[in-house]
C-alpha cells in the first residue's frame, strides 16, 4: 500500500451553523486520479475548500501527507472554478501563470528568471505557449481553463485540487485536460477533481469520492462507482439530513 496523500477525519463543515458536510472520513492514497462526484449542493466544492483551509471546520481535521494543511502549503496546487475570478483584470496570460510560483517565493520576494521559465514551460505544457502575452480578457472558456491549469502546474505541487475544470470547456480542451491529469498521475502526483459528468467518471478517474452532504462511498472506481452507490448518492432527497441541518440552523428541535 502506498502512502496516504490526503486524509479527512470526522470532518463537519457548516455555513451559518447549517451543516453542509457531515462527519466526512476518507483517505486517498498517493498517485491517484480522484473524481469527486455528487449532485448540486452536495458539498463538493466545500470539501475542497475545507481541505485548503478556505472555510472553517466545525469539527474534525484534514491532513496532507500526515500533516496539517498549514505545514504542507507548498505541496498543494489549487484550481478554483473559472468564474471565481474577474477575467477583465488587467494582467496577461503569463502574469496569471506566474502567480502559481508566488507561494514558493513567499512574502516580499519577486519572481525572477527561474519563475518565468517555469511559467513559460507550464504554458507550453497546456498548449498555450503562443498566448503568453495576451490579455486574459481575450481568452475563450477553454483557454481560460488551460491557463488556470498552467498556473497549477507552475505551483509544482504534489497534490492538486481542481474545482470543475471540465465545466464549459470545448472538446479539445477536455481531452487536453484528461491527458494532463494522466501525466500528473504518471509522475506520482495525486489529483482530486470535482466532476459533474457521470458518463466519463470511469474513463477519467481511478478513484472516486461519492458525496451528498455525507460521504456515500470512497474507493477505487471499479468497486465504488456502482449503481447501488450512485442510487444512494443521487436517488431521493436526503430529507432527513436536510431537515436536521435546518433545525440546527434554527437551534430548534424538529417539530
Amino acid at each position, binding site marked *: 500500500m502506498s502512502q496516504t496523500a490526503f486524509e479527512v477525519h470526522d470532518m463537519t463543515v457548516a455555513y451559518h451553523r447549517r451543516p453542509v458536510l457531515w462527519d466526512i472520513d476518507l483517505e486517498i492514497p498517493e498517485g491517484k486520479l480522484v473524481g469527486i462526484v455528487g449532485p448540486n449542493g452536495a458539498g463538493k466544492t466545500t470539501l475542497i*475548500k475545507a481541505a485548503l*483551509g478556505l472555510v472553517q471546520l466545525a469539527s474534525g481535521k484534514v491532513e496532507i501527507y500526515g500533516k496539517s494543511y498549514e505545514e504542507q502549503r507548498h505541496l498543494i496546487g489549487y484550481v478554483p472554478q473559472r468564474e*471565481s475570478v*474577474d477575467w477583465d*483584470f*488587467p494582467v*496577461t496570460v503569463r502574469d496569471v501563470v506566474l*502567480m502559481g510560483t508566488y507561494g514558493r517565493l513567499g512574502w516580499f520576494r519577486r519572481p525572477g528568471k527561474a519563475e518565468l521559465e517555469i511559467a513559460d514551460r507550464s504554458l507550453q505544457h497546456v498548449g498555450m505557449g503562443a498566448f503568453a502575452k495576451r490579455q486574459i480578457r481575450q481568452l475563450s472558456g477553454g483557454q481560460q481553463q488551460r491557463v488556470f491549469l498552467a498556473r497549477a502546474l507552475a505551483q509544482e505541487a504534489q497534490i492538486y485540487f481542481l474545482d470543475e475544470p471540465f465545466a464549459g470547456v470545448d472538446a479539445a480542451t477536455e481531452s487536453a485536460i484528461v491527458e494532463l491529469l494522466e501525466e500528473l498521475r504518471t509522475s506520482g502526483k495525486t489529483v482530486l477533481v470535482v466532476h459533474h459528468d457521470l458518463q466519463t467518471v470511469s474513463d477519467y478517474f481511478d478513484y472516486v469520492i461519492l458525496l451528498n452532504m455525507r460521504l456515500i462511498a470512497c474507493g477505487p472506481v471499479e468497486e465504488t462507482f456502482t449503481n447501488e452507490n450512485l442510487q444512494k448518492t443521487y436517488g431521493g432527497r436526503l430529507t432527513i439530513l436536510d431537515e436536521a441541518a435546518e433545525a440546527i440552523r434554527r437551534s430548534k428541535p424538529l417539530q
Partner: protein
Amino acid sequence: MLTGITVNAACALVGCFLILRKMSMMGDALSHAVLPGLVVAFVLTGSRSMVPMFVGAVIAGLLTTFMTQTLHQYLRVPSDASMGIVFTAMFAVGVVLVKQFTEGLHFDIGCVYEGALEYVPFGERVAGLPRQLFTSLVVLLLNFAVLIMLWKELKLSAFDPALATTMGFSATKMHYLLMVLVSVTTVASFEAVGSILVVAMLIVPASTAHLLSDRLGWMVVLSVLIGAVAAVLGFWWATYWDTSISGMMTVAAGCLYAIAVLVSPRYGLISSVLRNIRMSLLVLRDDVLAMLYRIEELKSSKKFSIAETAAAVGGGWLASVSIFQLQRSGNIEQASGSLQLTDQGREAARRLVRSHRLWETYLVEQLGMPLDHVHEPAHRVEHYIDEQIQEQLAAELETSDQDPHGRQIPH
C-alpha cells in the same frame, strides 16, 4: 498645486487596488469613517500633528473594516448595506464629537468637505514644506513603498483571493492592509482636497486608467499620471475662474474619465460604434453576395441595379457603402447597369450560401425546428460560420447535399 499632485498620486496608487477588488465605495466609507478617529486623537493629544492623526485614522479605519466585515459575514447584512450602516454611524459619531469637544477650537467642518488647498502656502510649515504637502508626500512614499514591496501579494489577492489564501498570503490580511493605506491616504488628503473629493481621487483616476490599460503595472502608472494631470488642470481652471481648487480637480478628473470613455480602445464609445459599423458592413456585404448568388441560381432574368440591390438588403447609406466596397474588392461588377458576381465573388457567395443551408439543415435535422422557422436564424448565423464549422456540420448531418427546402447545398 504640488500638494494637489502628491495627494492625487497617493490616492491613485491605492485606488487602483480598490477598484480591482470592486470595493470602490469602501474608499467613500473610510474617508467618512476616519473622522471620529481624528477627533479622538485631537482631543487626547491636543495637537493636529501628523502622528496622532494617522494613528487615530488607522484605528478608526480598521474598526470600520472590521465592523463592516462582521456585519456582512456573521449577521448576513448585505455588504453594501453594512458599509452604509457602519460609515454613516462612524461619521455621525465624528460630527457629534467635533461639536462636543472642539467648539471654539480650530476644527473647521466645512474644511472637512471641501478641503483648503487654497490656503496651503500660507499654513504652518514642517521641514521647510507646507504641512499638507509634507504629509501627503509622506503618504505618497508610504503607499509607493508598500506597493513595491507587496506588489505580487496585492496583485494575487486582488485577482484570486482564494488562491492567495491557500498559498499563505491571507486575503483578509491584505484587505486590512489596503484599508489601512486607504485610511492614511484619506487623512493626508483631508485637509487638502476634503473628504468627498478624496473619494473621487481614489476612484476616478484609477477607473480611467483601467479603461486604458491591459497591464496592472501600466494601470497604476497611468492612474498616477492621470491624477497628476487632473491636479494641474484643476489648479489652472480654478485660478482662471477663481473657484474651489479641489472642486475643479475633481471636475478635471471627471473630464479625463469622459475622454477615456470615448477613446478607450476596448470599451470606448467611438471604438464600439466603429466596431458596429464594421460588423454591419460585413453583414450587408454578405447579404448582397448571397442575394446575387441566389438570383443566379434561380436563373432569373431579373437584373438589379445598384440602387435596387441596396434597397433589397435594407437600404440606407451603409448598404450603398457595402456595395461600393464589394465593387472595389472585385467581388461584384457592374455590367450594363446591373450588378453581377465576379468569379471571386461567386466563390465567396457560395461559401456563405453553403453555411446558410448547412445551418438550416442542422436546425431541422438535429434540433427538430419547423421548416418555416429556420431561415431567420440561419440568416443571422451564416456570417460567423467558418470552414471548420462547415466541415463539422457537414460531418454531423445525414444529408449534406440538400437543404430542407430541397435546394442544393453548394460545395
